[in-house]
């Protein structure tokens, strides 16, 4: 009997079953996943840079340890995601090449600068907070390796947002200068964070397929709304003001009304015009280039080891 692969694929989606690497899948599904997972991986890797910017200046030994562990986790998450994408038939080299030449996208949030120690707090609290909403949803995505990577990532991420909020707490209840630092960071990171959920649903070109394929399970606007709702109370506790005059509880939708971020700025940063776009790519290129001889040496040594084993 002929197997109808497409029907099998559709029926798996309908039953909430997972799709595994060797299963038949529509070419568009594969392409969409490769794009989404590799972008996600790139974001983790580039995301090491803005926070890494403060490792050598972390103001206490404890905060240094925590920040280092956190930045390292992000590298690990990038790695889990790269290998998940590799299971779809793309090599790490191809993905890195796309990142390093600027062909691939990564989350635009990392093209904003971390100007003060409070930014490290704000990134953890807001940016990781937003990322976690996405990631929790992706644990149930239809592609097995992606879903498994996300389960692992979510488990590890759970401390990231907390460490960010802890930094904000120390600052908000610290000296006047520290509190100013915290408010300034919130002012600068609020709207870029709202942008992280992507363009409004009416303009989101990839959402429809992603929802159908269970690669995404909630829309950009749904996630954004949830993020605003949960963040307002956290800001209030800190005594910080969210920089949005229109922010107001709306009883009928059981959520806050809020101002849209500047979508023109959003598109402009994606196009490469953020203050750090070039620096981030340069940093990745520099590390890659300077690591070239290291990888070549390791490859040559590995080959020699293998040959001597065969000979022995």
């Amino acid at each position, binding site marked *: 009997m002929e197997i109808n692969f497409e029907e099998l694929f559709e029926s798996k989606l309908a039953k909430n079953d997972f799709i595994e690497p060797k299963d038949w899948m529509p070419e568009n599904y594969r392409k969409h996943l490769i794009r989404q997972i590799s972008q996600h991986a790139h974001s983790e*890797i580039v995301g*090491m*840079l803005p926070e*890494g910017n403060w*490792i*050598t*200046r*972390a*103001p*206490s*030994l*404890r*905060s*240094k*340890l925590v920040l*280092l*562990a956190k*930045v*390292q986790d992000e*590298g*690990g998450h*990038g*790695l889990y995601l*790269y290998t998940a994408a590799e299971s779809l038939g793309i090599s790490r080299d191809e993905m890195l090449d796309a990142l390093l030449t600027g062909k691939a996208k990564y989350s635009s949030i990392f093209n904003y600068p971390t100007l003060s*120690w409070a930014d490290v707090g704000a990134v953890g609290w807001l940016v990781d907070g937003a990322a976690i909403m996405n990631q929790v949803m992706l644990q149930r995505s239809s592609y097995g390796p992606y879903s498994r990577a996300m389960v692992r990532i979510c488990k590890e991420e759970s401390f990231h947002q907390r460490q960010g909020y802890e*930094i904000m707490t*120390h600052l908000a209840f*610290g*000296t006047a*200068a*520290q509190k100013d630092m915290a408010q300034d960071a919130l002012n600068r990171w609020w709207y870029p964070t709202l942008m992280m959920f992507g363009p409004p649903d009416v303009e989101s070109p990839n959402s429809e397929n992603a929802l159908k394929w269970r690669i995404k399970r909630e829309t950009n606007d749904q996630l954004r709304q949830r993020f605003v709702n949960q963040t307002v109370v956290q800001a209030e506790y800190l005594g910080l003001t969210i920089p949005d005059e229109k922010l107001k509880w709306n009883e009928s939708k059981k959520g806050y009304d809020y101002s849209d971020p500047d979508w023109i700025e959003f598109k402009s940063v994606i196009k490469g015009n953020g203050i750090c776009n070039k620096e981030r790519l340069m*940093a990745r290129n*520099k*590390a890659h280039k*300077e*690591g070239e*001889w*290291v*990888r*070549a*040496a*390791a*490859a*040559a*040594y590995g080959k*020699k080891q293998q040959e001597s084993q065969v000979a022995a």
Partner: protein
Amino acid sequence: MNLNDALFKYSIRLGDTSLILAQRLSEWTGHGPFLEEDLALTNITLDIFGRAKSLLEYAAKIEDKGRTEDDLAFLRTDREYFNALITEQPNGDYAKTIMRQAFIDCFDLLFYTALAKSKDETLAGIATKSIKEITYHKRHSFSWVMRFGNGTEESHTRLQQGFDEVWAFTEELFEMNEVDEVLLKEGIAVDLSALKPLWLKEITELLDKANVQIPEGVYMQKGSRKGIHSEHLGYILAEMQSLPRMHPNAKW
């Protein structure tokens, strides 16, 4: 020098050496030669920072003047720092970083293994925990020395260069002064002179397998036991201490 003074200075020396080394290593995080290795080196960095924290905590406790480990780390000047000169040397390329690390890992494993028998319980405890960590660090750095030494011509050249840049700072690791003498009598400190031949034997074997030449008659640098450093430490501290110094009354 009384015992308490000596113990404070000894703990500071060990703490500073770990702290400055970790501070240097942490410059690699996010910039490693490939992802897996970036994470591996960061794990090692974390261990060493952790050890620095424990040692400075202990130093602060012994001093008993109300200073914390953070005060010691962030509010002392370069002349009050006693880290070994080798730790403050710039990372250079990965071969130099690995060479420096192999020298230190080899020393540290011998040192902390001996310190684990110290009559000072806190130091012995920190040492016991450290031995496991350092055993792994050494396995990591030694295997990279082998890869570079026997990998490509370029990696071999770079390893030799890294060696040439760091070798002159190794002898200082074994230098002893009054602090050591006072504590040796009490069974607290490690006799560094006894470690030297063991260290030299292991390192010579490793370098031999990695085809690295050890030149004769290299002038060996010293100074850190007196708090006299190379120019690099000033910059490390300027960066590391900037926030606490900018906000003297702040807590983080």
